[in-house]
């Protein structure tokens, strides 16, 4: 009798461990992406739009903390806050009142700054139609296995987003740009987050597959800012991004939080506006999509099982290497 119970226990243990392995293997393959990119855009300039820059820089910090390297982030900011004449604390951009957190830091890498943040450059980055002289850091070099996070913030309206007080991008243009990205297989899955007034209008016209969108307010509603700092004199962040950041602070690279939790960020009681989301174009179920699939950069790894047996001796180089010492430093071409 005891043998039977022991056998049952043992077999259930085996079953459980095999399911675990299967699940881990399944997790490996379920997302289908091998690298992550982020395009973070702040579309406003001028001192009173301080909060938009702080929004974007806070998302930038979270994304970097969760593992996406600078080479895979395209950051577009007007970048006129830190060194603005009206900034009482130069070289800083704060996101919490009482100056708790300086999001500007000393390792912020802005790819498009100042007057380079235009609709044209944004669309060129997305579609890849950049002039050949553009350096690598200003390009979105994604492939068909890249998950891309796109974050836009600024002033918007019903169907458009204002860039630097001088031009606009419409939701039709944005949808067409995403379709061109899909045609050229420049993404595997794309998460689009927008924190502007009437933000939901910007994702109404999407029609390409594998897009998920989140917005801070519905059509007809305004997104509101969070808290002013009396020393700096402006509002420091927007509500939706503030609560989004609080949510992201609990995420670490190995966490298993999924998108359904992200949709619940900033309910109406906190945000005053009603955040919206759109998942009908997304092929996977949002409950199975991890937040780190877009915000982090968890690499897939495989153990190298085979090696090649090399037996020949290293050929000695003549002429140019005879002058070198053994230590190789720097880049050797």
């Amino acid at each position, binding site marked *: 009798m005891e043998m039977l119970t022991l056998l049952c226990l043992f077999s259930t243990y085996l079953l459980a461990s095999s399911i675990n392995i299967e699940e881990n293997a399944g997790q490996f393959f379920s997302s*289908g992406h091998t690298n992550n990119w982020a395009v973070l855009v702040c579309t406003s300039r001028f001192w009173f739009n301080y909060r938009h820059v702080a929004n974007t820089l806070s998302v930038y910090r979270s994304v970097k903390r969760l593992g996406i390297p600078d080479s895979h982030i395209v950051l577009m900011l007007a970048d006129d806050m830190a060194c603005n004449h009206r900034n009482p604390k130069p070289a800083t951009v704060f996101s919490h009142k009482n100056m708790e957190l300086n999001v500007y830091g000393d390792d912020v890498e802005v790819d498009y700054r100042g007057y380079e943040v235009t609709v044209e450059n944004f669309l060129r980055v997305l579609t890849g*139609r950049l002039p050949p002289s553009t*350096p*690598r850091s200003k390009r979105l070099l994604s492939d068909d296995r890249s998950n891309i996070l796109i974050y836009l913030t600024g002033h918007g309206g019903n169907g458009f987003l204002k860039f630097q007080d001088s031009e606009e991008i419409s939701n039709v243009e944005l949808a067409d740009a995403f379709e061109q990205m899909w045609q050229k297989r420049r993404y595997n899955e794309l998460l689009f987050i927008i924190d502007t007034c009437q933000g939901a209008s910007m994702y109404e016209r999407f029609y390409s597959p594998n897009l998920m969108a989140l917005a801070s307010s519905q059509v007809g509603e305004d997104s509101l800012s969070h808290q002013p700092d009396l020393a700096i004199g402006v509002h420091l962040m927007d509500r939706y991004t503030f609560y989004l950041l609080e949510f992201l602070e609990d995420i670490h690279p190995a966490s298993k939080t999924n998108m359904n939790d992200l949709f619940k960020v900033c309910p109406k009681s906190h945000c005053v506006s009603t955040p919206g989301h759109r998942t009908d174009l997304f092929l996977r179920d949002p409950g199975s999509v991890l937040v780190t699939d877009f915000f982090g950069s968890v690499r897939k790894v495989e153990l*190298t099982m085979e090696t090649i047996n*090399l037996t*020949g001796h290293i050929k000695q180089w003549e002429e140019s290497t005879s002058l070198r010492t*053994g230590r190789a430093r720097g880049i050797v071409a």
Partner: protein
Amino acid sequence: MRCVFSLLSAEQSQPVCQNASFIMKIIVKRRRGHLAALSIAAVVIMVGVPLWWRTTETYRAWLPVSQIQELSKLQLQLSADVEVVFSRGTVTPEQQKKLPLTQTQDEEHRVDEDTALSYRYETRYRTATVMEEDALNQPTAAEADLSLHTLSESPCGSLVVYVIPESSTLLPQDVDVYIGRRRTAFLRIGAKMRVGRTLEQLLAHMEPRVKQVLQVMSFSHTDITAALSDRVRLSPGNKESIADSMRAFKSSPGYEITFSLLNPDPKSHRLHWDIEGAAQTYIQPLLTKLAPVANFSMDSQTLYYAVLGVSPRFDSSRSTYTLNADSLAHVINPVEARLGSNAASSNPVLNFLLYVPDAHHSPLYIHDRKKQEVPSNAFHSPRWGGIMVYNVNDFYGPEAVFPVDINIDMAKVMGVFLAQLRLLLGVQSSSAPPGFLVAPCGTAGLADWELDRLMWSRSVENVATATTTITSLAQLLDQIGNIVINDNIAEQVSSAVTSLQLAVAELESGNLGFALQYSKEAILASERAFFDPSLLHLLYFPDDQKFAIYIPLFLPMCVPILLSLLKIISDARQKRRDKQAKKD
């Protein structure tokens, strides 16, 4: 003096019969007014409207749209030439009379409604020559392979299968098929299979085996459909095929390979690695052999004080430090931020890192999920590169004076990196069927038939990608009427179409080298056309904005013209009515 009130408008209905010249002046004036209005209207309609149309038209050069439509329906035919050579003792004299014999086999596959594949195998059966018989008399299969290679070299994309009798000592007991380093294979058939059969029966009996050899050494349906993934979004097959498709880099005209040595503890270890010599001796032969597929550039660097993002755990039973498989995923990100890359090119980068653990955390071993040590002590990440951990604690004793000079054994390191490089480039080392023995790949790191397989899948991938690019570009330009199509774009598109047609034709006739070259040209031209900076469509205007722009310009001009035209028409109608009344 006739009253000419029929020419007068309704307002001036009082006939001024007395002053005829006054009337004539009014008539002439009115006529002049009508003529003026009519001529302005004529100028506006016949000159102004076409001028406005032409000046606001976007310049669109001619594109070969019909040919692009044809290309969207892709019909690929892949041909392989196979030679089956019967050595002495494998065929009876009656069977031998019918040789040499040529057979052609076709296989059709429909992938989806726009893509069809057909495979053609042209098999030539013949007997071995005297020199080949001598070569087959060598003691081992590897030597036989070498001496056969010196006799004749098979062209790219073709195969030769030598059929050897059961009694032959070339292959070990349980092995039926040996796949050599070049393009030859040895197939052993049983003695009882040939007695009392006709040649056709023998060939039919051998066919499954030959087919298996072809699947391994030449293109296989799974590889080709995987290469078409740009065109066809297939539902994922088994987990292995998904992993394979995610691991290898996509086809690109060039790749950059970077070797990095990470030394977190320069105070203890002074590391010397002869990277130039090692890269030249071990890696460069592979890259030279892969030259038809892509260009490669190599660089190397040394990073000091670079640590892994994960702290290893101490395993007291073996008194070593361990990294288990789950924590490996978090190793790469902190390091990646410090690796540079060439700012000038947009080619994909393959990173190979050699990590020498610091003295306090040596030796460091990687454990798999079953807690066993991984023999190579290395791991790789799909589409990124590989990392190897190299322990140096054996090189010095406990009383050594720090920093210790250490020479790294580059042969061992490069053996691992070469294996990882092969995996990342898509040189498939799929598991061979049972009874097969595959020769190790040799100093070049790549067997000839592996290169052929890579070339087949790259050609198909390039053709598929280029056709998708061109068809989607044509669709895009058709949909959005506002994009300017310059002459250089039209030129690129035409040259891409021509190269594509040539590539498909060369694949059909079995010239693999030319097919790959044309497919590379096609993909370069199509990418250049698609990503041309001038094709930016910034010209979306909602209808209400269009009205808002044109109305203030045209309305003030058109209102007087329209009103005078209406007046002319109403005058003419009035005249006709009066004439009618007069007749009555």
